[in-house]
């Protein structure tokens, strides 16, 4: 279908600009991240998390989301960053990601705090810089430069379901 009505300035780039749109910005330490708003179900304060034995360290446990039990991942640990005690600003972002066999599943991710909703156009998003050979950048959608600050756009489906994020961790260092 051709764009008959659109007079939007960015129409020309539509084939490649699937990365534009709204992002929820949050931070871990000094690093700013963004995830697509469509993946976000809700944001809640940190509540009692029930620890589950024999799970990876980044799995903090499970919480009760209105009667449903969902796992909670600490994104700091997942990214190999230093763990810090939770504060008033720490929160859990509930996201809906793709699971096995085309199912979707909800998970909570613990972040230091959420800041704002960004509206990114194709012009704002850049490809991930080459971190050097051998470093894969799956898990990253790209980078956004806004007001002189760089925000890392995450492919949250991949971040949460991949077993090995070593290369991403390297990239973040």
């Amino acid at each position, binding site marked *: *279908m*051709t*764009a*008959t*009505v*659109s007079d*939007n300035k*960015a*129409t020309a780039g*539509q084939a490649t*600009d699937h990365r*534009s*749109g*709204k992002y*929820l910005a949050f931070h871990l330490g000094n690093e700013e991240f963004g995830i697509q*708003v*469509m993946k*976000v*179900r*809700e*944001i809640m304060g940190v509540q*009692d998390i*029930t*620890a*589950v*034995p*024999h*799970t990876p360290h980044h*799995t903090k*446990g*499970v*919480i*009760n989301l*209105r*009667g*449903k*039990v*969902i*796992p909670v991942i600490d994104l700091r640990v997942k990214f190999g960053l230093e763990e810090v005690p939770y504060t008033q600003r720490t929160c859990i972002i509930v996201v809906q990601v793709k*699971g*096995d*066999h*085309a*199912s979707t*599943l*909800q*998970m909570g991710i613990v972040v230091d705090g959420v800041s704002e*909703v960004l*509206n990114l156009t194709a012009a704002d998003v850049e490809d991930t810089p080459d971190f050097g050979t051998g470093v894969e950048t799956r898990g990253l959608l790209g980078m956004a430069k806004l007001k002189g600050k760089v925000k890392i756009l995450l492919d949250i489906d991949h971040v949460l379901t991949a077993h090995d994020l070593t290369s991403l961790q390297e990239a973040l260092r």
Partner: protein
Amino acid sequence: MRREWEARIDSVAAQFVLGEAATVAPAAEALAWMRQEAGREGWEEIARLAARIAERMASSPQWHTEGALAEGLDKLRRAVEAATAGDAPAAGKPPNELAQDPGLVGDFILETREHLISIENDLLTLDREPSQPEALHSIFRSFHTVKGLAGFLEFDAVRSLAHEVETILDLARNQQLAITATVIDVVLESADYLKQEMNRLEAGLAGAAAGEAAAVDALIVRVQSLNRTSVAAPQPVLAAPPEAVTDAVTGTATEAVTGAVPEAAPAAAPATPEPSPAAPGAQPPAAAPAAVQASAEKFSVRVDTQKLDHLLDMVGEMVIAQSMVRQDPELAGLRSPRVTRNLTQLSRVTDEVQKTAMAMRMMPVGQLFHRVARLVRDLSRKMNKPAGLELSGEDTQIDKTIVEELADPMMHMVRNSLDHGIEPVAARLAAGKSESARISLRATHQAGHILIEIEDDGRGLDRDKILAKARGRGLVGEGHTPSDNEVYNLIFEPGFSTAAAVTDVSGRGVGMDVVRRQVAKLRGRIDIHSEPGKGTVFQLKLPLTLAIIDGLVVGVGGERYIVPIFAVQEMFRPTPGMLSSVKGQGEMAMVRNRLLPVVRLHNRFSVTPRTQEASESLFVVAETGGRRFCLMVDEFIGKQEVVIKSLGEGMKNIPGVAGGAILGDGRVGLILDLEGVYGEHTLA
């Protein structure tokens, strides 16, 4: 164009994320744009969806917390993607597009499987009573429906086979063909083929490489050849009294006829009805109730099991919320008779809702029994041991999951009975028994449980032989004389009863230990009663539902765990004198003159306990898989009925954890899988 849409959808989505700070105006504006634009494009569905979302948003003050709205928005996004991606709307596409639609193919598989169950069931009825018009008619109708559906989806192998079988059955309906055992065999085989095809198609839906349909031509030829026989020997055989013939023919003849089927059965099997392996005395399941059931089903609704589980979850939460309200001290402080009365009414209604919701997960155990009936028919022929099956309590309702998970153990036990329990014909006659053996399946409700019994009138368990074997394996000490019950239970020990070996009916021989483990997984137990020369009874005691569990809530450090009550023997605070450390076996406790291993839960689960001192802790004596042990926890908190919840994908097979439950204060507690907890101990 598409970008424009995405931007608008995103801006609505963004409002959901902002939570309390969200404002309805920009979202409403964006939705109004979408509605108008969709109208101009002629995307009526999208326009309507946008309108419905806007309407719902406007009418709910808490709209930004509503998952349904977010889902609606997702749907809208997908619809827009579909509308902007393809070139034209769906009109005019060729019909074989139906076969590409996983939803329709899924419907087809589901429905065909339902028909297959009733086909098999009705065939077994016909096997006993060849002149049962209702059963015959019902089988005909099932194949007819399957044929029609397969036609739409262009599943040609299925369609052709169903068509041929339908033709044969139509002849039988019109009394131009006798329902012989050969006919039943071939139709059963056709049903088996359809079953395989459904599995293949289902695998295809799940994304597996499904491959081509299995070869069907040879089977079709055999179905057609049934027809030719009937033309060659058009005798009014339906009128022949089946009893007379059955009595006259021995099992050996049955075997010979069955064996001849693949090549030239039609020629070898003229118009005489084959003997039925089912004993003449066997009680046929009445056809009338089946018909009533069939028509009753027409008024039922199909519900996605996920939706049902969600409903059950929510009902569980409602029950908990209700009890929180009732126990609220502030409300109690009001001392208002009216509030009390209304709260009582609320809890009555909630109870009723919970019961109804639970009942929706239940299904009659009969379906399971009918699978066993098929097995008995096949095996009794193969082993040359005529046997009749008696069913009772088929309408007993039981949790759907239990029915599914129970199929394998039941099949195994029945096979075991036929293999080892039932004597060969000569031995039966010599023992003064009837030639045809009797196997009974019974289901009854019993005080919050369901009891399933499998009984045979065979030779019974051989106490001496089992004991000798057990002594040989060192399972029973030389000096010890176990009770009958203890001896019989030995057949459930791993590796004890693999003699059942391999049959092509239920696959590789699994031991009876697998049966016990499976039953334990369903939170049930199994007992054996046996009398030499008279027969054996297996008794399965199972919970009515798997959705709710009666548990003891215990605490370790800051965590709380739920121990399933059915496995708990007792609880006590140990005294220092009870404890000992046995070299190579770790900590042990002497409980009622038995030395039991001690499992410290905090060690298993790596949590920091309130106390390391056993004498300040609590011991829960639990039994799992026939082994008893002491579970050490900090404290006992209370007894509670909880709704079992999955911890979600990726957390399914955690050793020692059976699931999660939401406790009275809204926190999640883990439900222990004692077998897993103990299993880890033995590894440690």
